[in-house]
């Protein structure tokens, strides 16, 4: 650990400042001379320092901490393999499903993982369109998270169908039976939405990676140079290439934005277009999208707290980034809370006895424990983000992000299982209890996710180096022509402005 710390100090060229920052304590309030905002990247590093900070973790042998994380994740992934193998061998009966509760952990996990992915697309596409420059420090890892989350999500529809060898029936493939999928079904929309979402996310991610792969290629030798050389496709940082590249990136962001909103809307229609009380609700699409962003940001915070510490990226992923993400969690958490209360209002206002019963049963029936876990994790716990102290404490951020992850998993569980377990006919009411294999498959999906993430932080640049360089003050072509700061200018709190080394050359 101490090794990482020493090296992180080398990011900036200004020693006293760097030491102060990598300790994670003070954030100097030096404002940008042009837009009067505090700099996004701390310590005023040079372009080369950014390259070093991002590329170094790839070029060192992995640390013990990485091996520990990787091996734990890998054994959880092994558990997934065993669970799925046993499921295929024995059948769906190894799960705790029963007659009214035909969907439980499987679809809960599916919706949970699709939702996790959405924060990645929000950061990479929507915040890009809104010109939120702070996204550059976290977009690469958030996009990676999206892809891995979609991978986890796609497992569940594949394995929950009981006869996995006919999983290809989900796709419009000409076959000897002359049968075609039913395109009027939201489940079919879902197949297209989620698989296209995964494809577009992967394309977007790869396009963003190409310049950084070239950076790694140019720094390395031997086999690594050949591998990264092939992956970088011969990128030579040409401005003629950047010209088309930037256009492609903008268009991809413009396409991914409606895509991500459509994906979780369509996932919600799997439920909303049914006639089941508790599912048949028009609020579902926006409610699901808000929840997806909420849970996704929680997962980004969970991952970033660890990654930033492990790789000494304190100056690139700053407390300000966490502050922004905490505020987004607060907002989306309240949207979700609003949706919970509105559902109850509509249940009463609709005058439908079945609807009202379902919601009373949800809050006070046999699954009340799950419902109130959800409410306390998703509605109450994020309220702590009103406090600046909580938003600037990594311990609090980490703990609350875990709470939100738990709460959002329970949200899907509550929606699915409480609506199903007491259907119209009381004689068929049944209580769903997870079996060992329900739980092991869920834990296993986390294993897949964290294994992929460990491999990602080990082998690929985890910060979009080229993009971070564009938000440094010296990156603007007219940096020199901008009004220079007078050396004796003072910050509002009376400190003297320090002209950053490596600033406008």
């Amino acid at each position, binding site marked *: 650990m101490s090794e990482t710390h020493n090296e992180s100090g080398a990011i900036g060229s200004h020693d006293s400042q760097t030491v102060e920052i990598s300790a994670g304590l003070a954030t100097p309030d030096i404002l940008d001379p042009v837009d009067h905002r505090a700099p996004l990247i701390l310590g005023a590093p040079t*372009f080369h320092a950014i*390259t070093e900070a991002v590329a170094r973790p790839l070029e060192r042998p992995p640390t013990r901490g990485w091996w520990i994380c990787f091996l734990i994740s890998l054994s959880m992934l092994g558990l997934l393999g065993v669970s799925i193998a046993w499921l295929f061998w024995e059948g769906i009966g190894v799960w705790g499903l029963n007659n009214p509760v035909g969907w439980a952990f499987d679809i809960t996990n599916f919706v949970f993982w699709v939702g996790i992915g959405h924060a990645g697309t929000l950061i990479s596409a929507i915040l890009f369109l809104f010109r939120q420059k702070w996204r550059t420090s976290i977009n690469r890892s958030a996009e990676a998270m999206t892809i891995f989350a979609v991978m986890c999500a796609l497992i569940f529809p594949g394995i929950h169908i009981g006869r996995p060898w006919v999983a290809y029936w989900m796709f*419009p493939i000409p076959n000897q039976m*002359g*049968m*075609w999928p*039913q*395109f*009027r079904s*939201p489940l*079919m*929309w879902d197949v*297209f*939405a989620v698989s*296209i979402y995964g*494809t*577009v996310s992967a*394309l*977007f991610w790869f396009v963003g990676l190409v*310049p950084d792969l*070239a*950076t790694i*290629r*140019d*720094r390395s030798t031997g086999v690594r140079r050949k591998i990264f050389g092939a992956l970088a*496709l*011969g*990128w*030579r*940082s*040409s*401005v*003629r*290439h*950047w*010209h*088309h*590249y930037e*256009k*492609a990136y903008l*268009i991809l962001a413009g*396409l*991914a934005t*409606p*895509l991500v909103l*459509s994906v979780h809307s*369509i996932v919600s*229609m799997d439920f909303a277009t049914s006639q089941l009380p508790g599912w048949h609700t028009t609020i579902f699409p926006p409610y699901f999208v808000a929840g997806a962003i909420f849970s996704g940001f929680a997962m980004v915070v969970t991952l970033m707290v660890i990654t930033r510490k492990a790789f000494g990226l304190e100056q690139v992923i700053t407390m300000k980034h966490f502050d922004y993400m905490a505020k987004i969690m607060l907002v989306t958490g309240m949207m979700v809370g609003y949706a919970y209360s509105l559902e109850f209002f509509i249940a009463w206002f609709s005058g439908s006895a079945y609807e009202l019963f379902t919601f009373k049963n949800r809050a006070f029936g046999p699954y009340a424990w799950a419902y109130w876990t959800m409410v306390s994790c998703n509605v109450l716990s994020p309220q702590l983000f009103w406090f600046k102290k909580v938003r600037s404490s990594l311990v609090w951020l980490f703990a609350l992000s875990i709470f939100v992850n738990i709460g959002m998993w329970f949200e899907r569980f509550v929606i699915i299982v409480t609506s199903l377990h007491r259907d119209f006919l009381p004689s068929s009411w049944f209580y769903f209890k997870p079996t060992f294999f329900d739980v092991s498959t869920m834990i296993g999906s986390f294993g897949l996710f964290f294994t992929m993430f460990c491999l990602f932080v080990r082998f690929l640049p985890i910060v979009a*180096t*080229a993009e971070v*360089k*564009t938000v440094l003050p010296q*990156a*603007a*072509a*007219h*940096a*020199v*022509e901008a009004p220079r700061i007078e050396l004796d200018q003072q910050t509002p709190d009376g400190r003297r402005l320090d002209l950053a080394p490596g600033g406008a*050359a």
Partner: protein
Amino acid sequence: MGALNGILRPSLPPGERFGALAEFASPTELYHACEGVRDAGYTRWDAHAPFPVHGLDRAMGLKPSRLPWVVLVMAVGGALAGMGLQGWVATTAYPLVISGKPFFSWPAFVPITFELGVLGGAVGAVFGMFGMNQLPTLYHPLFGKPSFERASDDGFFISIESWDPRFDANRTVELLRRLGATQVELVAS
């Protein structure tokens, strides 16, 4: 083998010399140098920067990218294919009466049509961009220069090809020096 060669090498005219490579100290210097090279009337040249420098395409006199047209065609094509597939399946290949709706109940086909439109657009944007940039091109004469490795780190370069009608080893190097290059070298083909 021919296909592999296409991936490995750029299509350049024959000749011993690729051209001149000049390094500049900062994005600002590069910006003004690009304006200079553009105004001197060069056409076969390029700038290299580790990140997209804002406004540099204008300084180089590049025309707006035609990529959006590719994306438009691909997105519309994807959407049409989506609606076409669903309509054909619902009316011809596997007609089923669902809730007494007409066979071609197009509102139910909108989500998949939209998704396939997005897929077409995204594929068009990514592969159109790589196509316009003629990537992958795994080998390039510029990669022979060790200093050029900094183009993906913190180096700012202009390369002028020897096949440019205005190229003249002495005068081009002189121009680049005058424009503020910290270092100019000639690159073999």
